[in-house]
């Protein structure tokens, strides 16, 4: 279909350009913005592949929430325009070479594959009238709560663990502050603090 091909190439070029921008831009802030463009292009490709729920989740969760987290951290760290050292030499030289090798290998694997279905538009996904359509939230939700219930629960538990782990990693620890907070009499670092001054700072 003519319209579908135009949309594929526009979204594909957008996704590829966004990916190149992530790698090539020096300022991490612009890298994050470039990744947002990449994710939007990818969401359009998901729509072309009849994955409506996944496209919506990609835009809302990924481009909306995760990227905002990135932007907060970049703003907190301070996106340095110039790298600390010139990014050259060492293993970094082999990056483009390695990437080219991977791309060529994967393309050979896909194009020369014996899978007949790769050269089609995909299987027939027409459903009976009463069933949910392919890739809609209803169909995905039914799968998540029937066939894939255990991975679904494991994923939610993993999210909880990751949230707790991030709080533990990033909290302010005693003895590692960059500036003394209390203005009281100074004491040597080795000496244990008096019991009554122990306080919990988060």
């Amino acid at each position: 279909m003519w319209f579908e091909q135009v949309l594929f190439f526009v979204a594909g070029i957008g996704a590829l350009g966004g990916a190149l921008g992530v790698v090539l831009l020096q300022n991490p802030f612009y890298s994050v913005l470039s990744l947002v463009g990449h994710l939007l292009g990818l969401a359009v490709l998901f729509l072309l592949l009849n994955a409506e729920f996944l496209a919506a989740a990609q835009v809302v969760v990924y481009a909306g929430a995760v990227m905002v987290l990135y932007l907060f951290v970049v703003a907190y760290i301070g996106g340095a325009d110039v790298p600390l050292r010139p990014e050259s030499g060492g293993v970094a030289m082999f990056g483009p070479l390695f990437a080219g090798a991977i791309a060529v290998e994967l393309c050979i694997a896909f194009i020369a594959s014996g899978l007949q279905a790769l050269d089609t538009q995909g299987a027939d996904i027409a459903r009976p009238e009463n069933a949910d359509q392919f890739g809609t939230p209803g169909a995905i939700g039914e799968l998540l709560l029937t066939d894939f219930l255990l991975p679904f629960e494991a994923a939610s538990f993993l999210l909880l663990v990751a949230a707790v782990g991030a709080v533990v990693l990033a909290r302010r620890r005693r003895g590692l502050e960059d500036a003394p907070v209390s203005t009281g009499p100074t004491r040597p670092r080795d000496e244990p603090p008096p019991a009554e001054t122990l306080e919990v700072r988060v």
Partner: protein
Amino acid sequence: MDITWYLVLSAFIFAIGAAGVISRRNPLVVLLCLELMLNAGNLALVAFSRMHGSEAGQVFALIVMVIAACEVVVGLGIIVAMYRNRLPIDIDEMSELRG
């Protein structure tokens, strides 16, 4: 569009992400490039799911998105801890886990 087109596009995105992971020094950008590689995998999963006419691949892609979110949260926590401890924000300097 044939499924092969989507797979070739995902191969290119994966290669770009791999190049970034190898050659960039800023850990924030390395995390972004990891996202690129995971997204390339997602695109391939969705393309294969369309090829088979089964939604299982889309559920896989959803789980991959959850894993990516976890990885981002923990990675950003480590970067903030590096910044708090006045360590250089440079992955070549970070060669030991001991804080």
